């Protein structure tokens, strides 16, 4: 009977030693021992990760330029630069979103003024209030969010930016209702219409979709 992989992952990240029976098994089972070693290696690597970086927009232009000049001309193969240029514009914005995530600096340290702070108002039938404001941090935009009086419930609170076109949204991360939080905004997102700040209550169901359970909301000025 091999060791459950979640148990192996636990030993790999939590540093507690396998119990005697399991240790016996690991000594005699190459497969489980190899898997544990592999998970320990992943955990070690994960503790020294590089930050992801994006090439300048010019690289995409160079790629389409190089392909444009050499691709066979034909009804199917002909490169449509305009399509690509438009796609590149989308790529530039969403690509920046790859690294989206809470910057996780929900500290009480002194923070820059948030002149654009807006109030987040409860939706019909909901309770709570909050504020959200854009802070410029070394050229990038961050959203500073605080909330109070949110309806308690099982699950967690998630901060979203909804596009004013009503069709798209991005998740910015998990909000601690007591401490508030600061979240990276994908480059150019607010200019693209992602201006509605929404805080939802999300069940712990593994479903990444918005739960439909929005609590408070407000719109950033354009």
């Amino acid at each position: 009977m091999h060791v459950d992989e979640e148990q192996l992952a636990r030993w790999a990240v939590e540093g507690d030693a396998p119990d005697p029976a399991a240790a016996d098994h690991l000594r005699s089972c190459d497969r489980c021992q190899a898997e544990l070693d592999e998970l320990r290696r992943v955990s070690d690597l994960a503790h020294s990760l590089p930050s992801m970086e994006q090439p300048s927009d010019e690289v995409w232009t160079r790629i389409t330029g190089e392909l444009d000049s050499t691709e066979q001309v034909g009804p199917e193969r002909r490169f449509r630069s305009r399509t690509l240029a438009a796609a590149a514009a989308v790529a530039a914005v969403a690509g920046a979103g790859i690294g989206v995530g809470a910057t996780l600096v929900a500290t009480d340290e002194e923070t820059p003024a948030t002149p654009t702070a807006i109030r987040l108002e409860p939706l019909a039938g909901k309770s709570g209030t909050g504020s959200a404001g854009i802070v410029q941090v070394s050229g990038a935009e961050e959203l500073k969010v605080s909330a109070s009086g949110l309806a308690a419930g099982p699950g967690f609170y998630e901060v979203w930016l909804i596009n004013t076109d009503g069709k798209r949204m991005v998740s910015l991360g998990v909000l601690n209702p007591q401490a508030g939080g600061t979240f990276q905004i994908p480059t150019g997102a607010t200019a693209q219409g992602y201006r509605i700040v929404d805080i939802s209550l999300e069940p712990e169901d593994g479903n990444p979709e918005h739960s439909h359970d929005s609590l408070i909301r407000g719109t950033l000025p354009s």
Partner: protein
Amino acid sequence: MTGAALWRVSAGPAWVTVRAVTSKDAGDPTAAEIATAFAEGRDAGLSAAYRRWSGLVFTLALRSLGSRADAEDVTQQVFVAAWRGRGTFDPDHGDLGAWITGITRHCIADRFAVRQRDVRKAEAAVRLADGGAAPQVVDEAVVDRVVIADELARIDDPRRTILRLAFYEDRTHPQIAEQLGLPLGTVKSHIRRGLLQLRDRLREVSGDDARR
């Protein structure tokens, strides 16, 4: 067939009544959708692949070569080579991200070779001695770290936030639980499963490299 088809979102009621929306609706086609469009030679496949993997390619090249200019050159080479070689990519039997990562290794190795040649030329002008330094190869740990960082950025919340706190900021599990207002058991469970998720991704990518 334009790019719009690939990440078109279905029309729905206005935002006031929030529909179930995922980050996919925010403009991210799945890796499989991108791979299919790419293999079929659709323009949208290339732009979507670039959007999805240019960060990985560029970061890997930058960490290996230490120069933004060289890393941008490599990024260009990789996507041009991938597009021209798309006929050899089979979306049913391979992962496009892993395939592109493999091309990136080759392009970085080529760049190392060019640098070494340049160094040898310079040295030869001074002394006609042995230029027999071992060829520099791509550091596997760098590849693995970039692959992990790229995958981590795509994991859904709350797991992504939890893993970022644990790995990037070296917070303890109780600290994370307190910061996010989540039960400790939930935090630990997400970290364990997240580690397995990262391991699985790493296996997919290195498995593909082995075949190349």
